[in-house]
């Protein structure tokens, strides 16, 4: 192999890449911009910033003390952005996508809910009108609503100003209930106890706050990251994902260069010279790998400086994953050059394949949200190993051992792609 020629060809490729404004923009600016955007919407730099609230309209058709308290408590919930609306207006807002969920509190809600605490029967129904494109958020609203309604209704029933009347009504209804006498007696004793409790609580207004049901537990949360005290930075995953995506795009361009060189006669010049085929395609692969490394290091340096993304795990492992992915990208580029006939026809197909690889690899959204079968399938694409490897080294804080698997898998893919490229490469130039 002629090292003078090899070096010259690599230098040529690097120079052409950095002279190409479109390529530089796509390789450096685009991943940084899109990763920043994705990182921001998925939580930003830390979890301290409040999450966006779910827009909820409340239609209160009861207009009772208790239902007004329910509305007030819901309005105070950190997860919800509550506004009172009329039914027709709320329905229209949900249909138009302006509001995610509308909760309709029916008339006689407080009265029926209070009685239903002690026995089944005439339970009031809170109707949820929701935007079907936000089905997940409906579940959140449902849970929040259940918690607050239970707390308010039980507190009002067991200790509020109207509670004695509710207890009296309930005891009166007992006579008509058709229950067994023994059961009636037991329930009556409980209601009398509740009445007595209400009188004691009413005598001590401060105690009212403690009456009623409340959640029997509290929840403590800890995001398990590289180590205690290190907050999760969602920028880390999005930068890894976008890095992988746009470096693969660069790999396609590297393949396109070979196809364009065939078209412009430059490939003929190389073939006419005493160069081995390995010098010709090896230099192409080497330059693509170098560009890939430069892109990765630049993009992660930006993430470090601007968003504080740190390599919390093994730095050697991080570099290892980067190098393996760069080599894999170079071989992917050669594969594109081999399988493509013309630059125009090849680009579209190559971009489609890349987008599928990127999607399956978890570059856009983490792979764990995929169905299990798809998660299993995703291990068959190199991007999954690249994203997992980078995640492990960057924010999970894993050691070098965790990088060995991804590095090995990426190099295996590179070897496979490279073997196919050498096997199928059209060494002859058609006249």
């Amino acid at each position: 192999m002629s090292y003078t020629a090899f070096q010259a060809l690599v230098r040529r490729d690097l120079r052409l890449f950095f002279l190409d404004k479109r390529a530089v923009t796509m390789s450096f600016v685009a991943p940084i911009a899109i990763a920043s955007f994705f990182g921001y919407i998925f939580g930003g730099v830390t979890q301290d910033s409040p999450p966006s609230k779910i827009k909820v309209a409340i239609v209160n058709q009861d207009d009772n003390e208790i239902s007004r308290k329910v509305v007030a408590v819901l309005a105070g919930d950190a997860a919800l952005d509550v506004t009172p609306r009329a039914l027709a207006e709320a329905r229209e807002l949900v249909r138009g996508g302006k509001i995610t969920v509308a909760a309709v509190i029916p008339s006689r809600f407080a009265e029926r809910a209070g009685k239903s605490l002690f026995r089944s029967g005439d339970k009031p129904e809170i109707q949820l009108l929701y935007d079907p494109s936000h089905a997940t958020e409906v579940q959140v609203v449902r849970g929040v609503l259940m918690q607050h309604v239970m707390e308010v209704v039980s507190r009002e029933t067991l200790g509020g100003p109207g509670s004695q009347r509710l207890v009296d009504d309930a005891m009166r209804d007992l006579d008509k209930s058709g229950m067994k006498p023994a059961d009636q007696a037991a329930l009556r004793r409980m209601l009398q106890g509740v009445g007595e409790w209400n009188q004691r609580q009413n005598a001590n207004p401060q105690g009212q706050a403690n009456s009623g049901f409340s959640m029997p537990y509290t929840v403590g949360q800890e995001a398990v990251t590289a180590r205690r005290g290190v907050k999760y930075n969602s920028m880390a995953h999005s930068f890894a994902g976008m890095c992988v995506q746009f470096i693969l795009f660069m790999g396609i361009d590297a393949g396109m260069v070979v196809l364009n060189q065939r078209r412009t006669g430059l490939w003929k010049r190389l073939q006419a010279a005493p160069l081995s085929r390995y010098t010709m395609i090896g230099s192409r692969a080497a330059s693509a790998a170098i560009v890939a490394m430069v892109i990765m290091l630049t993009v992660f340096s930006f993430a470090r400086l601007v968003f504080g993304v740190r390599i919390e795990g093994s730095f050697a492992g991080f570099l290892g994953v980067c190098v393996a992915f760069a080599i894999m990208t170079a071989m992917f580029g050669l594969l594109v050059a081999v399988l493509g006939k013309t630059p125009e026809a090849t680009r579209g197909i190559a971009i489609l394949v890349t987008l599928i690889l990127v999607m399956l690899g978890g570059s856009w959204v983490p792979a764990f949200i995929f169905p299990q079968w798809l998660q299993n399938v995703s291990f068959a694409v190199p991007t999954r190993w690249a994203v997992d490897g980078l995640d492990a080294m960057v924010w999970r804080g894993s050691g070098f051992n965790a990088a060995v698997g991804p590095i090995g898998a990426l190099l295996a893919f590179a070897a496979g792609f490279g073997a196919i490229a050498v096997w199928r490469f059209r060494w002859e130039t058609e006249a």
Partner: protein
Amino acid sequence: MGGAWASAGQRPFAVAPQCRGAAAPYGRDAISFRNATAPVRVYSGDMLEVKGLHKRYGYLVAVEEVSFVARPGEMVGLLGPNGAGKTTTVSMIAGLLAPDRGEVRIEGGVVRGETDPVKMRLGLVPQEVALHDELSARENLALFGAIYNMRGAALANAMEAAFDVAGLTDRAKDRVGTFSGGMKRRLNLAAAMLHGPRILLLDEPTVGVDPQSRNQIFSSLEELKRQGKTLVYTTHYMEEAERLCDRIIIIDHGKVIANDTLAAVRRLVPSVNVIEIGVENPGRDGWLSGLRVLEGVSAAEWDGSTLRVTVRDLLESSPRVLVWLRERDYACTYLTSQRADLETVFLTLTGRSVRNA
């Protein structure tokens, strides 16, 4: 075959001193037009020997048993219409394509493998402008020198000489993308000469070139010939071949149909003359079929403005042609005649015009 190197000879070509010696084993003949007093080395045999080249693509035979030789200081023209097999032949000589049969010998040696140093003796000027538009002319030449293992002072001197030949010294730092078509063609040629090849393969090097650049390229090629380089020149411009080539090889449908010196090829149709007639109101398709069967007429071609009629005897056949036109009310605007040129030779040998083939 059987050639040998001599210390001086009848076909001298200059050797750039900066490229001689062990440091640049394949660059000893790097081009230097300004070094006319440099030492001279001569190879007395056939510089290039092509024997029975054959190439087939599926059912299509692109090149069939093509053979010829080219000597130092000789320019061989491969003539033929598009698709005749000229580029395929050149591609096989340059090692871009493997022939199905036949062989190519360069100074008596067969090229063995991609990295065979024998390839250093070849320079290829592709039909396309094979340059990087994004790079400067200097960067382009530096790259093409480096792929022939040239570097340092040898490369710098060869580049300087190449720019001089191409008339682009003052544009060396400019991006090739800013060059005119003619300037690009000249640089395309300079890039192939940079490493001092003894054989230059030129595949239609003047396509799309303005007259000024064309003349400059011709001058460069004539200078290379004087220096003892062997040139193989493919074209479908007959007038170029007539001006430049010592030996003419006419190829049609992949076969060699004539292979001799220009004078000898002309003698293949010794009594042929051509009458050119301007016709104002030509007929529809097939209007010349009656003319072609007139006694003494070998061929008749209409190129859209001029009728070219090939006749064996000018005095006897011309009146017959004019009468034929007048009887059919074709209006003639002018009449000229000329001796057989290569276009006529091709027309006579194949029955078709080289441009319409």
